[in-house]
């Protein structure tokens, strides 16, 4: 069980790193993208896919 908790902690640490990295990447895209181009849709799609993956990973852990 200890291994399990360590895995969860490592996963959460990874998630924090992922979120920080994504924040900077999306900020860059938002800052230098052009009004009306694909930057905004890309930000939205990326956000949705990320949330879906994170949600599914915790969902499968709990079932």
């Amino acid at each position: 069980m200890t291994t399990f908790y360590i895995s969860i902690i490592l996963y959460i640490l990874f998630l924090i790193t992922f979120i920080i990295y994504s924040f900077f990447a999306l900020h860059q895209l938002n800052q230098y993208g052009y009004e009306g181009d694909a930057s905004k849709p890309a930000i939205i799609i990326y956000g949705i896919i990320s949330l879906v993956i994170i949600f599914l990973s915790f969902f499968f852990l709990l079932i």
Partner: protein
Amino acid sequence: MLRPGHYFPGQDMNEEIVLFLRRHWFSFLGWIIIMFVMIIVPIVIYLTYGINGASLSQSDPTYRYYLILGAGAYYLLVLAISLTAWINYYLNVVIITDRRLVDVSQKGLFNRKISEQSLLRVQDVSARIIGLFQTFLNYGAIFVETAGDVPNFEMPSIPNPSKVANTILKLHENLVNLGDYETRLGEAEGAETIPSYEHAHKSQVLHIDNDTSPNTQDIKSDGPIIIQEEKPIFVEKDLVLKPDYIKEPDENIIEDSSQLNNPNYIDEENNVRPIANTESSGYIKHIFQVEPENHVNEYDNDFNYDADFDGVVVDDEPDRVISKIDNNIIETSSDKDNKLIFTNNDHVKTQEGDLEDGKSIKL
């Protein structure tokens, strides 16, 4: 998010974006394939072998947790790599304005380089299409050779490179043909002394006392209005035709009203010259010849001009806002009931009363 019309730092307000280019999609295809493989391969492995030969639900709980957390982390990593690759592709742009080439190079998330080159320094432009795919998909590299010690400009994977190269050369020729090449080249090299009337060699301001002007028929005559080039007057650099910066001639400045119909008459003392007369309850206060270097800028609430419009705008309201002038099409957002006269060397058109927002006049 960068505003429409503003594409790079240092862009002049009246600088026109001629081409905005991203690399050809084929140059991103490698990343698409890599990402596709990275997404598909784990799924195929799982579906083929399962976990120790068992399905997810039947497997050892420990393996199951590792698999779920590992898969979650793996796909988030793939997603982050995909985003980074896409940003590198998508924010890598080449912008060609009527004055310069701008290469915005994005390498990684935090490495962004913007290099620009004046079109005046362009010596030769060549397009290179190499290989089967580039030939088939019509994309390739453009090399711009520049004068002096300035590094050459290279733009890889540009769609339709021959056409782009042609456009760059045409823009260069247009810029050179505007005249005053040496001064402009000096400006491109960072010289400090630029004549204050640099952009105004075709501009002029005219005042006509309309109380004595003849009727509108004179303006609507078929013959062209000959506009002679005049030394620049009343105009400041970069503020061409902005009312605030134009020296206002006194009213009734042309005292000899008999000269109002004489296109060759020049009031040298006041530097004004009639080029058109009109019947109006008011009077024509300014006549401008549009300077080809002035362009539409939707953020400028003062007078705006388009490079292709080299006619004359006659405006009887110095504070009238002309929001957009497109190629021989003038739009005004003025709410004043005055007469507007638009003319180039061939045609004259008058507009009585107010113009609705966005309404255009085609000469």
